[in-house]
């Protein structure tokens, strides 16, 4: 991990990172009201009088949201608290019509857990989870519609969020991004949050501090609401450098909340007054404690799907895939299902290659997901089957793949119709080899002293047969004919 240290003028510094991820629960209605949750509705079209903070309106908790929090907690191997409570976090802001956010400070629904995170290179590390609690989202203030006024849309107000708080267990921007990526994959696999960062359905507050390696924790700054992997990394890199510079100049870090400005790639202080942090939390008298029946928790536990980390390990073991391929194929539920349907009893590594390199490569170039693949898993499986049994070469398979993509029939139909069957007939290949050697005596002589020059002959025979020759057979025939064995 020494490579993640920041080299300052006065020596190395270690970055310490903890994240608070806000994941929007994939519910139809809000946490405490029957108004719809959704993106793109007209202003204030998804607002009930509860969400708008009308006097006398009472919150009623959404069962589904509770279930999603428990499910996520179980996915994080965390303690599920049989009794939890809701508290009011008081502050004034126009997009918070109640004057407080209902959250769970003192008794969250989910306690300590852990998430095993995999880096791109396949190595893993564990991030401790401190807690997960349910809370309401605020509305949205729009400051640029009028020079003298702020416009407020309360559609988001009251939407259920799961706030997932990690321990300060990460030491580099890459690891922080890997943590969020792994968490997002887990949430999507569980179906508790759609993980759509562009729509703000998953966003992170990043706590950054620096210290000399081996020393105690430094003072941290919190960067609010960072909503993409790239911005998370940029914000951390910038903020850590800023802190190192202050410390090396003999200054002190002031604990504060900062904003990341993606346009400038820097963080800046939110200039908030000290008292803004005085939230005067107290138990919400409108809501009774939430008591979970053990039977309900067990029912939810039984409904858990295979989790991404377990699936990744299974793919590596059962199919002999590389850590990278297993990671890519289990990053999304649809990918894993596609792969398993395509693989069937075939050479799984080959199927993985074609899925990861060819299919996913092509799909991502067109900005599409695997659910929109024009090639069905069984069709890709059939193509790999034809390579496996020697009917076509890998090179020809690329051509067949293009035609499959274009919807020109099944792999077998395409191969038969276009006459792409691999030529393994030794007689025909021998004739081609003889002709070639006779026409190029000097090259044939050269191969005797420089065996790797045989490549030219192989290439010529392949060309002659329109790429349909079986390369292994061509090689064998040529070696025999040229007398190099």
């Amino acid at each position, binding site marked *: 991990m020494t490579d993640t240290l920041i080299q300052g003028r006065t020596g190395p510094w270690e970055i310490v990172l903890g994240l608070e991820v806000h994941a929007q629960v994939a519910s139809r209605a809000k946490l405490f009201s029957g108004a719809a949750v959704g993106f793109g509705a007209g202003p204030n*079209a998804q*607002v009930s009088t509860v969400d708008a903070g009308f006097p006398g309106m009472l919150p009623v908790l959404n069962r589904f949201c509770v279930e999603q929090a428990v499910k996520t907690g179980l996915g994080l191997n965390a303690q599920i608290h049989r009794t939890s409570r809701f508290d009011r976090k008081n502050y004034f802001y126009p997009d918070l019509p109640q004057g407080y956010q209902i959250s769970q400070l003192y008794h969250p629904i989910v306690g300590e857990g852990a998430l095993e995170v995999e880096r791109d290179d396949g190595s893993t590390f564990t991030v401790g989870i401190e807690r997960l609690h349910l809370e309401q989202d605020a509305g949205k203030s729009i400051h640029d519609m009028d020079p003298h006024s702020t416009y407020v849309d309360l559609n988001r107000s009251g939407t259920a969020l799961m706030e997932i708080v990690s321990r300060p267990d990460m030491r580099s921007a890459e690891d922080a991004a890997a943590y969020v990526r792994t968490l997002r994959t887990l949430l999507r696999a569980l179906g508790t949050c759609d993980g759509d960062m562009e729509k703000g359905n998953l966003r992170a507050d990043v706590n950054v501090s620096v210290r000399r390696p081996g020393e105690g924790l430094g003072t941290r700054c919190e960067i609010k609401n960072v909503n993409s992997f790239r911005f998370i990394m940029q914000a951390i890199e910038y903020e850590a450098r800023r802190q190192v510079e202050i410390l090396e100049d003999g200054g002190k870090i002031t604990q504060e909340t900062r904003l990341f400005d993606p346009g400038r790639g820097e963080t800046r202080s939110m200039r908030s007054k000290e008292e803004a942090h005085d939230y005067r939390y107290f138990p919400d008298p409108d809501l009774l404690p939430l008591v979970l029946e053990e039977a309900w928790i067990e029912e939810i536990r039984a409904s858990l799907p295979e989790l991404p980390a377990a699936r990744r390990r299974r793919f590596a073991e059962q199919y002999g895939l590389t850590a990278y391929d297993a990671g890519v194929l289990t990053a999304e539920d649809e990918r894993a299902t596609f792969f398993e349907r395509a693989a069937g009893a075939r050479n799984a590594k080959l199927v993985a290659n074609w899925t990861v390199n060819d299919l996913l490569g092509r799909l991502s170039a067109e900005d599409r997901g695997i659910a929109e693949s024009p090639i069905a898993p069984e069709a890709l499986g059939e193509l790999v089957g034809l390579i496996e049994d020697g009917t076509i070469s890998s090179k020809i398979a690329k051509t067949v793949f293009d035609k499959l993509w274009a919807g020109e029939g099944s792999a077998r139909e395409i191969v038969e119709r276009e006459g792409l069957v691999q030529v393994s007939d030794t007689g025909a290949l021998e004739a081609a080899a003889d002709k070639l050697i006779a026409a190029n005596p000097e090259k044939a002589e050269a191969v005797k002293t420089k065996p790797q020059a045989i490549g030219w002959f192989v290439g010529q025979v392949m060309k002659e047969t329109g790429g349909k020759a079986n390369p292994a057979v061509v090689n064998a025939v040529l070696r025999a004919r040229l007398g190099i064995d």
Partner: protein
Amino acid sequence: MAVDAETVRRVARLARIAEPEARLDPLAREISGILGWIEQLNEVDVDGVEPMATAVHATQPLREDVVTDGGDPARVLGNAPRSDDGFFVVPKVVE
């Protein structure tokens, strides 16, 4: 527990209540009096008693995840002093 004028100023500000300077000291005395009266409760021995959340013996009612409300911006905006194009409009807020 005694509350001073400075605390009253701070609490008033947090609650967005404008209190004239002259009212701070009298308020501090009043609030201190109320707190002192409530503090009599500290005399009760509650060792080993679970904190009570409610006087009603009821379990938290839960609603199903069904859309039953919303879809009526005019109703929500009905009491707003200012609105425009479906939005609430408030004095400019910076940050």
